[in-house]
């Protein structure tokens, strides 16, 4: 798993996939009253793990690091909800303990694609070409007319900005 944080793309992909299943199970148990939030929180946490992976130290257990991030994002969610929607908290008394397997993602309510569109071009275009269309850095640079380092910086900053957009969206 740690290989994923060492720059091995395939291992990293696998890590994120396994992680998403664990996060889904983790949040489903803890957010039984608001099942709608689970998939959003899974996505938000995956993005946070990605953006904060420079804070991981290989001497530290990976599970502790990820758990702390997941817990932080969940507490953050509760804090936002308690401030915004105290009177509007859906009380599902029939929380289904035997839901489908954890790998079955429900639809996220928030559309990250739409949030992506709000990023400036120099961040949005590299993400679009590289991440969604699978172009390489060099190809993306050619298509967009940006330099290769600008493409890399754009992707990096764009993903951070996306995380901030998610956070601020809740604040409204």
């Amino acid at each position, binding site marked *: 798993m740690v290989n*994923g944080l060492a720059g091995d793309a395939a291992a990293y*992909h696998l890590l994120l996939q396994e992680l998403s299943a664990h996060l889904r199970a983790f949040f489903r148990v803890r957010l039984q009253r608001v099942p709608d939030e689970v998939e959003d929180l899974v996505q938000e946490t995956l993005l946070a793990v990605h953006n904060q992976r420079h*804070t*991981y130290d290989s001497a530290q257990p990976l599970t502790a690091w990820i758990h702390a*991030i997941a817990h932080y994002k969940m507490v953050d969610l509760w804090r936002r909800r308690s401030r915004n929607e105290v009177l509007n908290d859906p009380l599902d008394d029939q929380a289904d303990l035997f839901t489908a397997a954890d790998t079955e*993602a429900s639809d996220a309510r928030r559309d990250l694609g739409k949030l*992506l569109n709000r990023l400036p071009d120099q961040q949005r275009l590299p993400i679009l070409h*590289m991440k969604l269309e699978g172009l390489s850095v060099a190809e993306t640079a050619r298509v967009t007319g940006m330099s290769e380092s600008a493409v890399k910086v754009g992707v990096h900053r764009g993903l951070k900005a996306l995380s901030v957009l998610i956070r601020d969206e809740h604040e409204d």
Partner: protein
Amino acid sequence: MKTDDLIAMLASEAVPVGSRVWQRRYGLALGAGVIGAALLLMITLNVRPDIAEVVMQPSFWAKLAFPGALAAGALVAAIRLSRPGVALGSVSSMLAAPVLVVWLLAAIQLARTEPGGRSVLIWGETWASCPLYVALLSVPAFIALLWVMKTLAPTRLALAGASAGLLAGAVGAAAYALYCPETGVAFLGIWYLAGMLIPTTLGAIIGPRLLRW
């Protein structure tokens, strides 16, 4: 966007991450904080003129050792609180020990002094300004440390802010010691501590807002 699409999107940016980036960042922040405190001291109060003679006195070194010991504890706490999933551990004893030692030494010094001479050891002549100057000199380190912390995803924000504040306060107190004319250990245990607790409290208050990610 489906979660699988998000994963595919993130996975294509599997850049290796140089581990332990925080070490360099903390080094830079502390360096900036110390230099900033020294410059502020030069501008505002300046080093006491008899510094060469004072260096021979134990009270001068006590005034450096006390914030120094607290800085060590606060640095450990700040580094641990800066990143997700690192246990805080037994930092509280590292922080309590210097304070207790100074209070004990202060009690001994007071007990050995004639009643008439005690108030000077407690209040000195600069008790009112000392905590404020300590807080002022801590400002560069405070800003630099919070900035570094913000890049490292702390999860316990009030504690993280407080630890950054205490570390900055200790830097400020050590710088102030180069000017401070007082010799009472009790003065150190009260007014230096009060000065260091100003940024500590401020950090605990603004941490939850400022350090969010």
